[in-house]
């Protein structure tokens, strides 16, 4: 039971982290219609930035996160301007371009980090929160969860309460109709990818002290993001958040009891199962008609 | 004898009633016009008949068979073939290849005979059929051109040819005259009459009233998803409710 509760707590922290990058991927896909395969690498770049600035150069953790967010956002904006906008008529071309970016970012990370083993960032927040005598959550994880939740809530406010958020959602629902209503799709694309990649940068910053950092860590991130996106319904942001939390709990529990590979296989099978039953995902609505 | 019966067909998209309890019948050998202002539900009706949409309620019966749950390709095999709004062709294929796709039902090939060349006779028959239809449509000389290189009139003729090659009993034509000049319209009207004379029942959705009145023997008018009126072109022309719907709609 203790193990179970502890796993639930760890799962929740993971869920917040999953939600950050899954929501970004959904936002970019929804508004721009492009699958950003380099999204995992953006998280990786965020984590590497923390390693370079915080662990190596001694910059404080929070400013390092800020730099990571800015850096990743700039990469995202450049991708939109240089790659996705010229290839907008062909979603496959955008996807292929993002694979090109993926390779380039991996190499840059390898050059910056040098050869050798995975990097580690010592947790800036030491100590452990103890609840009910048994439940132990390191403060680093508490911090990560709190920031994730705060970021997601701000995103929700942005999308539902601001005019620009409405515009984004309109474009995601029907690009042509939105254009007819005078919404500038170039600007909404910039904002969507800006927000989406900023979240990826933040996710990288938050995960950095909790994981092994290497140029190939993006692979697991993108696999997770795809599972979460599909299970949650491709067009649905709230679905992605819900799916992120559920999947994190699911993955953590299965990892604890059966091992990590089985957990990932089950996740993938779950995803295919969701696609069989309801190709638009748990929260997705069919917009084909 | 009626070839197609619509019985209380309703199609709902979320809160929108695209078709509201519509019933009418089409007789074998007719050219039936399906008209109405924009958004009246004409195209939705076509898509329901051809199996691209499923009616929310009601039934569509073709030659005594309920079409409920049938896939588009099955309905095509049963003899109902639709043409599309605007110009829908395989732009990247030649005229001949476009029409050959239409021969799918009658002369489909499987991988083994295709690789080993076992179905040469069948393929030859298909080619001859395609050439006959291209001749009928006046496209013989253009058979090696890409569909995308054809002038508008020939593109529409090719769309008809693809449908004809499949030897349908009934053709649903979705705005075949849209965007045509007077000369092209006249030519297309001639082609449509020829198709009907070959024994194919035609249902026509069209905004070009001159073409509709000139071609159709009977008209069905839809408005806001409801059946508004039915009658001969003369009756419809003088129907007050139809006039009101058109004037009010524009």
């Amino acid at each position, binding site marked *: 039971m203790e193990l179970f509760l502890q796993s639930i707590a760890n799962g929740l922290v993971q869920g917040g982290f999953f939600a950050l990058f899954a929501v970004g991927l959904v936002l970019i896909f929804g508004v721009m219609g492009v*699958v950003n395969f380099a999204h995992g690498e953006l998280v990786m770049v965020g984590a590497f930035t923390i390693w370079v600035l915080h662990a190596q150069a001694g910059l404080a953790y929070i400013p390092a996160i800020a730099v990571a967010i800015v850096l990743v956002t700039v990469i995202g904006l450049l991708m939109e301007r240089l*790659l996705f906008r010229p*290839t907008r008529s062909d979603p496959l071309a955008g*996807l*292929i*371009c993002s*694979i*090109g*970016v993926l*390779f*380039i970012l*991996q*190499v*840059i990370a390898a050059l910056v980090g040098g050869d050798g083993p995975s990097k580690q960032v010592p947790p800036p927040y030491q100590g452990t929160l103890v609840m009910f005598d048994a439940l132990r959550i390191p403060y680093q994880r508490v911090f990560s969860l709190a920031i994730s939740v705060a970021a997601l809530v701000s995103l929700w406010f942005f999308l539902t309460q601001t005019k620009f958020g409405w515009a984004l959602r309109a474009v995601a629902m029907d690009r042509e109709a939105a254009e007819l209503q005078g919404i500038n799709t170039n600007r909404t694309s910039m904002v969507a990818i800006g927000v989406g990649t900023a979240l990826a940068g933040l996710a990288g910053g938050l995960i950095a002290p909790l994981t092994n950092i290497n140029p190939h860590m993006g692979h697991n991130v993108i696999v997770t993001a795809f599972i979460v996106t599909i299970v949650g319904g*491709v067009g649905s942001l709230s679905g992605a958040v819900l799916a992120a939390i559920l999947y994190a709990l699911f993955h953590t529990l299965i990892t604890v009891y059966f*091992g990590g*590979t*089985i957990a*990932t*296989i089950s996740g*993938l099978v779950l*995803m295919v*199962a969701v*696609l*069989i039953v309801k190709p638009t995902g748990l929260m997705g609505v069919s917009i084909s008609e | 004898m009626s070839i197609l019966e619509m019985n209380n067909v309703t199609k709902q998209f979320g809160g929108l009633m695209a078709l509201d309890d519509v019933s009418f019948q089409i007789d074998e050998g007719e050219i039936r016009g399906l008209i109405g202002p924009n958004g009246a539900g004409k195209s939705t009706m076509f898509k329901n008949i*051809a199996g691209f949409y499923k009616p929310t309620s009601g039934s569509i019966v073709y030659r005594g068979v309920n079409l409920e749950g049938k*896939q*588009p*390709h099955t309905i*095509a095999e049963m003899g109902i*073939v639709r*043409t*599309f709004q605007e110009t*829908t*062709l*395989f*732009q*990247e*294929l030649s005229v*001949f*290849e476009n029409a*050959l*796709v239409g021969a*799918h*039902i009658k*002369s*489909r*090939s*499987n*991988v083994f005979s*295709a*690789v080993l*060349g076992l179905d040469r006779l069948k*393929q030859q028959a*298909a*080619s001859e059929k395609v050439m006959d239809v291209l001749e009928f449509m006046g496209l013989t000389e253009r058979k*090696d051109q*890409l569909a995308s290189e054809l002038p508008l009139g020939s593109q529409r003729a090719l769309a008809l040819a693809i*449908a004809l*090659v499949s030897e349908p009993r009934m053709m649903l034509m979705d705005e075949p005259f849209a965007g045509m000049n007077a000369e092209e319209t006249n030519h297309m009207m001639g082609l449509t009459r020829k198709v009907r004379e070959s024994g194919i029942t035609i249902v026509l959705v069209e905004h070009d009233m001159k073409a509709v009145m000139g071609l159709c023997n009977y008209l069905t008018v839809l408005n806001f998803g409801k059946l508004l009126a039915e009658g001969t072109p003369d009756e419809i022309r003088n129907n007050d409710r139809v006039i009101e719907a058109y004037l009010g709609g524009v």
Partner: protein
Amino acid sequence: MNSKGGFTIQRMLFGAVLLAILLVTPHLLSFHHKDLLIFLTINVLAVCSYRLVTLTGEWSLIHAVMMGVGAYTVALSVNHFELAIWFTLPLAGVAAGLVAALLCFPLLRMTQFYFLIGSFAAGEAIRLTWVEFVGVFGGTSGLRGVEAPIVWGIDFLDPIPYYYFSLCVVTICLIILYRIEHSRVGLTLHAIHWKAPLAESVGVDAWRYRALAFILGSFFAGIAGGLKVQYLGSVTPNQFTIGFMVFILIWVIVGGYNKFYGPIIGVVVLTIFDESIRSFEIMRPAIYGGMLILSILFLPLGLESIPAKLKFWFGSGTSPDEPPLSDQ
């Protein structure tokens, strides 16, 4: 198409030169490059079979794993039953085809983005199964000791005979793939790609044809995987990651997927290119990535379109487009 006689002579000449190059090349290469030549030959089959899948306009991310299914089938059948290569290769194809047939039901409910991601998930699940079930598939270190076949007394451990052997197998497969594409079946696949609703409206069961392309493409991918393991003598899950899948994708796209020979040009040119930047080591993926982006942005029809483009700019002024299919 026009002036058929002259065309045939040109073709025969071209074929003779190509054949001579293919036959002589291995004798001019170092041992390392002979290896590479064999992998290149196998990869030609990988990209051409992948192109068959993409003819309907659906891009899958499971093709590399299908090669893996073939490879594992061969490894298991050689290690446990000592089957000869005449049986193992078709078996590899059939196994991959069967897996594809089973996957059709979930995967082909989806199209476009959903299919892409769904195929990726299914592939990754299969690959992780090889990692997880150590008893059967050997885990991360895979299966080793797959004995090199001996045919007519020739030891296929030697790269040159094995090269000729795989050249024969791949050529036969390519002829079949070519004939499929240029048959009525191929025409229907093209038709589904360009306008699925129009094809359906004249009675084409698009689902069945998508399934057919997927199963056949996987069949030949399985054979390619089988060829690979018979030469390497071992198979690991890491040979068939999304990384390798991305390479297949790059070869096909950079070469140009509108023509049968586009992907072949892509894989040959990029393999030579990759070899020539060997000294850059760590930079190689980035150079690849950069090339990929440049080719998408500036050469969307692929390397295959360069001659037509040059002709268009400097010569006759005819349109660079050509019908993708010739007459029957």
